[in-house]
């Protein structure tokens, strides 16, 4: 194995080292430097590191970041897992439709989600509160979105589908005979869930928990929009301020980026330890099986109610608020006919917005496809190669996850500008940046699926005379098909809504929908961004539905 995979492992190692280490080196350099690369008079300094680590100014943002990430994780993961179990293993009505709808919250970027929830849940002017107080006669507001619980609530709604995507694959891949055995021995639904199902889906739960913790910790849009009015600062919001307003404070952003690195790197190490323990839970063996559906009786309607309530909060209300806002001249709860306009949509009919749609579809479609191939190779090398290079590849792939997106984007900008790379200024630089930033997420999806595949299957192939490459192509890859679909879908969405790297690396020729949305937001406020948000969300939904249908994998995804 080692002999055969030597060149592949070396190639993958070199490739991802170049992709990942270059921006990271520039970022770390920036943290210890008093200016940008090549800046006259700039020199080595401890100032940024002192400010971030020793001055105490980052202590409160650090605690807030950890609190928000932890609360989001402990709420989103169990609920996402519960929904996955309901949709994958129970006879809840309209399962196929519900499985399709549950990933919609991911299409609405967190930024747009925050803006739409401000329109809904602002204390005096939010639609929900206005209906609650003016029309239902209540004296107190129903909610205040400008609060810690408001931040966690919006992030919870957004991250539940991530937990769902991770866990549903594991549940569908699981041999139901194991659960049947538990029930035959007298275990009820809850006992079987706790004693059998839960341990078997542990790798997927850990993966989703890690992903959600890290994504929540590095997310700047929701805590910045909802937390700033009530003085809740987080590390990403400080980095955002340093880059977006300071310009010259990019070095502080670089130093702050390293702070979050230690936290997430620690999380990743814990994750590896947990996954190592879970590798004994191999569930895909040579035997064929069909996942068993549990009859919940009348409980299926309660399960449906839970699901629909989540859908109401995560999709229906924000989407309605987006839709309503996109037809308004300005945001107000005092509705009147004079308030409505098509101008926000007319503003979109600029050639550059069509270019933005074309570029986004290209980057998301081609980028996600290339990334899926790269992620499979990286996961395979990381899990099936028993040498230090394999382990190094695994750790390297996870590194970009540890750095807040805006800080990583600064590292990328410095690296791509300084080095004589001809990609700078082209659309390809965005593709490289996206692949670098999201490699670790794709790899985790494949890794959590790959640990469930018994290596005996691959060994049987090789004993029959197939080369490792042929084994990977003919045996492993087909078994990874559901994971490929999940990864492609997730990466497609990530690439579509990516903003942090795009805003620093785009040009007028490589503008994307997210950048256009950001620009609209900066120019005219959220209602203009709402219009493009509606277009973006709808396009992504249609493209994904078509892609899944055409590839025939739609059935795999839904079934």
């Amino acid at each position: 194995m080692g002999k055969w995979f030597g060149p592949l492992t070396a190639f993958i190692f070199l490739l991802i080292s170049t992709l990942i280490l270059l921006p990271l080196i520039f970022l770390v350099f920036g943290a210890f430097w008093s200016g940008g690369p090549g800046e006259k008079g700039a020199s080595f300094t401890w100032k940024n590191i002192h400010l971030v680590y020793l001055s105490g100014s980052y202590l409160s943002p650090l605690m807030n970041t950890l609190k928000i990430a932890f609360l989001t994780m402990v709420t989103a993961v169990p609920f996402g897992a519960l929904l996955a179990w309901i949709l994958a293993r129970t006879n809840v009505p309209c399962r196929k439709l519900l499985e399709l709808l549950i990933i919609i919250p991911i299409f609405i970027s967190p930024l747009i989600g925050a803006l739409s929830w401000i329109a809904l849940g602002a204390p005096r002017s939010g639609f929900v509160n206005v209906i609650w107080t003016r029309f239902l006669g209540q004296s107190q507001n129903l909610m205040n979105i400008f609060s810690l619980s408001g931040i966690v609530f919006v992030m919870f709604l957004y991250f539940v589908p991530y937990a769902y995507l991770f866990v549903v694959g594991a549940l569908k891949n699981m041999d139901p005979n194991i659960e049947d055995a538990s029930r035959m021995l007298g275990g009820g639904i809850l006992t079987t869930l706790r004693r059998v199902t839960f341990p078997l889906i542990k790798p997927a739960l850990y993966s989703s928990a890690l992903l959600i913790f890290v994504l929540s910790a590095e997310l700047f849009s929701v805590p910045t929009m909802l937390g700033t009015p009530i003085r809740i600062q987080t590390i990403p919001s400080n980095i955002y301020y340093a880059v977006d307003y300071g310009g010259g404070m990019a070095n502080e952003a670089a130093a702050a980026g390293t702070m979050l690195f230690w936290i997430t790197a620690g999380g990743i190490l814990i994750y590896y330890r947990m996954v190592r323990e879970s590798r004994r839970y191999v569930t895909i063996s040579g035997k064929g099986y069909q996942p068993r559906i549990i009859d919940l009786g009348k409980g299926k309607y309660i399960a449906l109610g839970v699901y629909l309530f989540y859908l109401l909060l995560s999709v229906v209300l924000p989407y309605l608020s987006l839709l309503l806002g996109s037809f308004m001249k300005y945001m107000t709860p005092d509705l009147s006919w004079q308030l409505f306009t098509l101008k926000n949509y007319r503003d979109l009919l600029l050639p550059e917005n069509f270019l933005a749609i074309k570029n986004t579809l290209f980057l998301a479609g081609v980028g996600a496809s290339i990334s899926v191939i790269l992620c499979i190779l990286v996961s395979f090398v990381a899990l099936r190669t028993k040498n230090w290079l394999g382990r190094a590849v695994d750790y390297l792939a996870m590194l970009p996850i540890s750095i807040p997106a805006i800080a990583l984007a600064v590292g990328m900008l410095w690296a791509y500008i300084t080095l004589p790379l001809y990609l700078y200024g082209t659309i390809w630089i965005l593709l490289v940046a996206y692949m670098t930033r999201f490699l670790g997420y794709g790899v985790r999806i494949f890794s959590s699926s790959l640990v469930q595949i018994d290596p005996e299957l691959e060994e049987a192939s090789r004993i029959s005379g197939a080369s490792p490459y042929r084994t990977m192509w003919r045996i492993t890859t087909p078994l990874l098909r559901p994971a490929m679909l999940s990864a492609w879908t997730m990466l497609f969405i990530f690439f579509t809504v990516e903003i942090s790297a795009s805003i620093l690396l785009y040009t007028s020729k490589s503008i994307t929908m997210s950048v256009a949305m950001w620009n609209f937001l900066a120019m005219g406020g959220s209602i203009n961004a709402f219009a493009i948000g509606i277009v973006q969300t709808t396009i992504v939904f249609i493209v994904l539905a078509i892609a899944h249908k055409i590839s025939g994998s739609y059935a795999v995804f839904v079934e």
Partner: protein
Amino acid sequence: MRKKVYSLLSMAFFLILFSGAGWAAADPEIEAVYKRVVKEIPGVSKELLAGAKKEGKLMIYHLVWKEAIHEMIKEFKKKIPFIEVDTFMASGGPMHLKFTSEVRSGRAVADLWQHTAPNETDKAAREGLLLNYVVASDGAFPADMKNKGWWYPPAPHLIGVAWNTKLVSDKEAQILKSWDGIVDPRWSGKCAMLDIIAGGTGHLPYYFFDKEKGADFWKKLQTQKPLIFSGIMPESERLAAGEFSVILHALELGPVTQWKKGAPVRWYFPEPALNIPVTQAISKIAPHPNAAKIWQEWTMTAEAQTLFSKHTGFAPARPGAPDVREVVKQAWYYSPKKFYQYKWEDIERELPRLKEKFKQSFR
């Protein structure tokens, strides 16, 4: 023999040289454009036009006013048809980072760069990232609105006090004509303001409050319990929605954007008015320096300043340029006469202390 060859070669050289010069001078398009624009854009010469024609392009890194820039480009193209204009838009911070990083690494992409913080543009000039080019209209701008040759202002950033007309009566609003009016107890719990770390437009008001209004004013400001916003657009949007009554210091861009949409917002400029010029500079390594110089010359004319003002909603930066905005026709609107004089170096020096003070008071 050798002498003859040299003579012939010299003659040939001069023939080519003069015929070339004659050709350049006789380029009918340049002649026509020059005749048309020489009065409108005083600083433009035939040589500049010939150089710009050869370059054929211009790349402008501009701030978040795409519609206004598109309108400006349309007008510019009518005057100078042979320059294709490309643009890149971003907010101040990312723009600063991208521009300075590109120039330092020798990547000649941008010709012109707009920024919101004059101190950062001054720093870029000192570092050698900018081209010094004195426009013909230089004398039309006061010293605090330019850095001679290094940058000129396409627009000013005026800071006032904004309110929601559904929540604040005209009578009540009168007290907002003075800075002392913003600390009136009636706004307590019903107001918002920008975070000090939100760029230059956040720095200047707190510097002014601290230095000029004294400790008592700051204490009263603290008791107003304002909501703190990270940007002027979300803040103005919430004001329009009625989330709070007053923005205690608002960049005109925010309320004017909402007002143009019909939102119930108005604003006054308490005096001394706070003003930060937007800067526009030419890159030291501009790939199209002649085209950049023509744009710089044109945008500092009274005509272009009025046009830019009309499409952005800002007042013109050039004194005397006609202000044709719809808002100036409103009875309640007035332009400030007296401006606060300050030095950015002083603000920068005080900033760490002010940030800490802000943190203790409002976070």
